[in-house]
């Protein structure tokens, strides 16, 4: 319950931040930003490993982005399927030599290709080294001072890059990273690499995740961003200042949560150097990504997230509760450590306490049930507040049917789904202690 109350406080902060952002962005529309012709050049890095189903659609969507100068750099991370062949055929790739700024050590690059049809498309074929290694290779080879990392199975909205780059236009010298909102693509219709109609999936498991995304992005990250202590920029969509990332040493290979770890490390480094900087979350540039549709993939994904969280927190444990690190040490690190990292254990201990208490007669059955009921109510309350934020600000699911489905999901998720997620997170914690560093197999339907 304490956890829920703390989360509720962060929600309130997010709510204010979100409303402020919504009002401010009305006065800096993408069209105005585009017209100004001063968008900083951006390299979009797309690590791809066995993505033959979705890679062509993803690249097409990226090439159609509304932005000034940008290049798309796809890093084929030793795919065993036809990812490279699909790209070669679709974009008429031709091998080139490339003068790269080798500042971060990476696996060997086999070849660099440039498209004959799209001048701003570069494909790097390299030996398998994982997502972090692919991104580091991209950083070494890309041309521009800002790089945007996105997942190969994701779709960016036309104006997403303009939006996510806007903070750099406002305060280039202080902004070091910005992150955007990730939404579930399942259920939506996609045409020419763009989302045409936004609809909810018919699968309950996806709708639970839609709610989780709302809670995490709209209600959590917005609040932390307002306090300049945002610890996560999703690997699916983030824009970074290349030089600062290189200075920090690039992405780490020895973690499965390389996206979060990099952001925590940037905070750690810049706060230690007493630099004036900001890492911001911008809620309206949208990246659509496929949410897992089966329980096994979802479990593996959450298990990995939990292990990644563990790495990110424990590598930088020095900041936890340390006032020298300001809001990062005093607000977000404690939140992620106590509420996100070890809360699954607390939750299970709570369940065990009540069950054993009832069994031995030390806890009143009615009190136990009431307590459980209260946690359910608080869970529903948080989901509904997130939903309210979405309704007031973005209203992307504009059918009333979708809203009712989400309200129903907010109630149902507390009976089974939430306990399952707690279980896989506990398992993730256990695997983390055992030193498991695997990614696990992710089943994807693919963007058609």
């Amino acid at each position, binding site marked *: 319950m304490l956890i829920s109350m703390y989360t509720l406080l962060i929600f309130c902060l997010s709510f204010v931040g979100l409303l402020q952002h919504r009002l401010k962005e009305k006065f800096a529309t993408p069209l105005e930003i585009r017209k100004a012709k*001063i968008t900083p050049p951006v390299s979009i890095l797309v690590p791809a490993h066995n993505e033959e189903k979705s890679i062509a659609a993803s690249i097409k969507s990226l090439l159609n982005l509304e932005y000034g100068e940008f290049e798309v750099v796809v890093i084929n991370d030793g795919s065993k399927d036809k990812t490279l062949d699909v790209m070669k055929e679709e974009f008429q790739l031709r091998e080139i030599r490339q*003068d790269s700024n080798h500042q971060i050590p990476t696996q060997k690059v086999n070849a660099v290709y440039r498209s004959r049809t799209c001048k701003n498309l570069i494909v790097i074929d390299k030996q398998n080294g994982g997502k972090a290694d692919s991104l580091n290779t991209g950083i070494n080879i890309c041309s521009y001072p800002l790089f945007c990392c996105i997942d190969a199975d994701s779709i960016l909205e036309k104006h997403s890059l303009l939006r996510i780059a806007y903070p750099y236009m406002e305060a280039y010298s202080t902004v070091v990273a910005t992150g955007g909102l990730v939404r579930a693509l399942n259920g939506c219709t996609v045409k020419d690499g763009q989302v045409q109609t936004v609809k909810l999936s018919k699968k309950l498991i996806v709708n639970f995740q839609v709610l989780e995304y709302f809670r995490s992005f709209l209600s959590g990250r917005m609040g932390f961003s307002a306090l300049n202590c945002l610890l996560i920029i999703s690997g699916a969509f983030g824009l970074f200042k290349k030089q600062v990332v290189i200075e920090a040493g690039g992405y780490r290979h020895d973690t499965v949560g390389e996206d979060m770890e990099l952001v925590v490390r940037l905070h750690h480094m810049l706060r230690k150097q007493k630099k004036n900087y900001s890492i911001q979350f911008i809620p309206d540039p949208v990246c659509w990504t496929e949410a897992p549709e089966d329980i096994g993939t979802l479990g593996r994904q959450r298990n990995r997230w939990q292990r990644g969280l563990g790495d990110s927190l424990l590598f930088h444990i020095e900041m936890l509760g340390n006032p020298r690190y300001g809001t990062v040490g005093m607000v977000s690190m404690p939140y992620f450590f106590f509420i996100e990292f070890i809360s699954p254990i607390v939750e299970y201990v709570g369940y065990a306490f009540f069950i054993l208490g009832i069994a031995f007669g030390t806890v009143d059955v009615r009190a136990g049930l009431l307590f459980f009921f209260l946690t359910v109510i608080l869970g529903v309350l948080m989901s509904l507040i997130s939903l309210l934020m979405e*309704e007031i600000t973005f209203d992307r699911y504009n059918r009333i049917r979708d809203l009712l489905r989400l309200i129903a999901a907010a109630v149902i998720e507390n009976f089974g789904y939430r306990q399952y997620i707690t279980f896989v997170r506990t398992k993730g914690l256990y695997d983390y202690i055992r030193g498991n560093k695997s990614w696990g197999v992710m089943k994807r339907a693919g963007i058609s």
Partner: protein
Amino acid sequence: MLSILLNISFVFTLVIILLILILVGIKAVNILWRANKKHAQAWIAPLLENYIANADAPVPAALQSRGWPLSTIVQYSVIYRSFGKKGKELGRIAQAYEALGFIDADLKRLKSPFWWVRAEGARCLGQMKSHRTKPALLEGLNDPVKEVRMICAWSLGRSGETDVILPIMETLVKVSGLAGMRLSSTVFELGKKAIDPLVQILDNKDPAVRTLAIHLLAEVGGHSTAKHITRKTAKDEHKEVRIAAYKALGTLEEPSAETVFSEGLKDDAWEVRAQSARGLGMIGSDISSGLLKKALEDTNWWVRRNAGEALTKLGQKGKKMLVLVQKTGASAEARNAAAQWMDTLEQLG
């Protein structure tokens, strides 16, 4: 204990029910608002079109003195109709806007305690290029909220009067250099009229204002402004101003700047060297190929990159230099860069 838990649960349950009702209510209001707007626009649009097309026609009575929400729908229908319009057509739309009393309403909005209402009022006034509201908008340049100042500056820029350039630029620079550049793009609407005031601003004491003036001059003024911009490449000038000046000369593709760029390639600041290399490529003069060959061997990656790109634009002489560096370049980086740009050149055909 049990009763406390029960009471808390009861309160939270009520809150949940209330939230669900609010959510459904908001959704219903949104759906109704969209439907109402669509319906209203269906009859507003022909009336507006008819008014704009007939110069002597009075403002349609059906559009006047409407209560909320119709008045808002009418106001924004007029605003949307004005997007992308210029000259007489915009003048006619602005006439309707004034006659319907929206200018006065916007002036009232400029005094609202809520910053977003003030900003929206300023935006509508700017969209309609209302001249009589200039004093109120100038006052808005001192608004405590950044967004309001930016929108007021934008609106003043649209008014087409040169005396607003300096206050606009000073306001925008205080907000942020880049935001300034973004919104000052509206100064472009002034066209050639803006050149003289901008040339004067080149001597402003604030380097950020001078930088902004250079960017704008390059966009608005064309080649006639090159000599003024060249003045700002002097060694004793502020570094950011010099970088902007080199960049602007490159953007202008100013042939007379070749000597300036050659000098720039020897500068201590890599940003100046990179802009000079870019500029030489933009001019496309093959006399500079020797200098670019040297720049291709620079220690800074950005200078090498721009020099390589520039050489690809110089035809046979550029190609010759790329081949030369590829074979005999002083460093591996230079040889790699040359190889890369040779590939690009081949690809460009």
